[in-house]
């Protein structure tokens, strides 16, 4: 059974640690003894091909999936439990709700009416859409709204699942800039993605999930499967020992 250990008033360099976390869903082994860390104040990417368990790892840390084994440590610098934030890959807002932008903020994050504008300005959301229904927004605007709501809750760690999935090309850079700014404000961010370009351009740390992963040296790791080969260069540290072929998970630091 998966256990969660909460450490308060901790100055540990990592805010989240996973030790041998396993997860089985419908008799399928999704995660197998996954060990990785999310360093504090970092922009960490959880990457891998489709079906490798990226979202499942994040959802297990968030407590939304019941891991079958292992330990998750949460290190809080204060005397309270760390606040975990989550922006799903997509939300199918019910058309029948007719929720407006301001109403969503009030319900999801209990944002006061007087603070709505400031909350939206933090993610550069166009204020002329405050009274618009969410179903009328573009993908990028919805993503910013979801970010704004989660940020208001002052998360210690914010998980973003494929934040660019529903965003058009012209808005991608904008969203990335917002995410980087949030990281610079001291929020630890964990992004789940299969976009290796994003990883190579912005990552502080990478958790790579790939069932066909093979590390041949410390200078380059090959993620090898039947569909593609991806080089990750300038690796400073790889866990476990890169000299050995292995299946499973690799924690790559400082790309």
């Amino acid at each position, binding site marked *: 059974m998966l256990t969660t250990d909460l450490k308060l008033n901790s100055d540990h360099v990592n805010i989240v640690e996973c030790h041998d976390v396993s997860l089985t869903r419908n008799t399928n082994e999704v995660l197998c003894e996954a060990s990785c860390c999310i360093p504090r104040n970092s922009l960490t990417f959880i990457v891998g091909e489709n079906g490798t368990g990226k979202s499942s790892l994040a959802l297990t840390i*968030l*407590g939304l999936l019941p891991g079958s084994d292992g330990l998750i440590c949460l290190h809080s610098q204060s005397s309270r439990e760390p606040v975990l934030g*989550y922006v799903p890959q997509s*939300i199918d807002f019910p058309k*029948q709700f*007719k*929720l407006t932008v301001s109403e969503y903020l009030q319900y*999801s994050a209990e944002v006061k009416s007087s603070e709505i504008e400031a909350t939206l300005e933090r993610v550069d959301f166009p204020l002329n859409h405050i009274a618009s229904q969410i179903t009328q927004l573009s993908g990028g605007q919805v993503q910013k709204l979801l970010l704004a709501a989660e940020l208001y809750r002052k998360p210690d760690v914010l998980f973003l699942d494929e934040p660019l999935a529903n965003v058009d090309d012209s808005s991608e850079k904008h969203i990335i800039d917002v995410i980087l700014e949030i990281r610079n404000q001291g929020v630890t961010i964990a992004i789940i993605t299969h976009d290796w370009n994003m990883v190579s351009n912005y990552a502080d740390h990478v958790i790579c999930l790939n069932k066909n992963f093979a590390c041949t040296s410390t200078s380059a790791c090959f993620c090898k499967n039947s569909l593609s080969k991806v080089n990750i260069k300038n690796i400073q540290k790889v866990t476990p020992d890169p000299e050995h072929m292995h299946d499973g998970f690799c924690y790559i630091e400082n790309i």
Partner: protein
Amino acid sequence: MFSISFMQRAFIGCFLLSITYGLYGMFIIPRKIGFMADGISHASLLGIAVGLSIGINPLMPALILAAFLGFLLAYSADSHRVTSDGLIGIFLSGGMSGAIIIMAFMPGYKPDLFSYLFGNLLSIQNVDIYALIAFTVFSIIGFMLQWRALVISTIHLDLSKVINLPTTQSKYFLFIGMSIGLILGVKLLGVILISALLITPVMTANQIATSFKGTFITTQLIGVFASFVGIALSYSLDLPPGPTIALLLVAIFVLSLLQSKLSS
């Protein structure tokens, strides 16, 4: 009309039902389980038939059955093995079949049964109004406590859990509360068409309102208006109240749809 005691009870009953059904309908429709209202109300016919056959208040076994079915639906809502709509279909067919079989063994003409199927203005007693008042108060308090959890869990279940909202509690409140509410309205509106008051006001409000708050207010107004006018028409034209109110709601919905199409 307004000075007659049974009409006063009918108006009060309809007012209370409109308020509570408007609240439950706000969340049943976006969750795409409007069929649940039909399933529960039709299945409850089994409880009514049992009550009539053994000579007790038929609403008592119907209430127990409805609450149990509501609990089962809440329990299975997140299940991957059994879908909610499939389960509702099973409840509906099983309940109605059982009721018809029981009634087949009941000798003679069954006037009470017709009343429960389509409603009867004369059937509402003071005790029914007291029960509706208690249920309305329970529902309003419950919704005040669960509102945020219901809104967010309807939008995205995982998000509501991350925010630590009482998601499971709110789900059981919604399903079981709605099931009980449907039975409490059966005497006035009937088993067959009671779901119309739960579903149609929200659907109509969706055509008109431009915000969540607006949808809520419009739902309440439409429900109260349609039920009041329907009761009055039912009395004036000697029609069963359930179908009269249902038809009026459908007409209002069609008008709102036309208005929505024309304005867009």
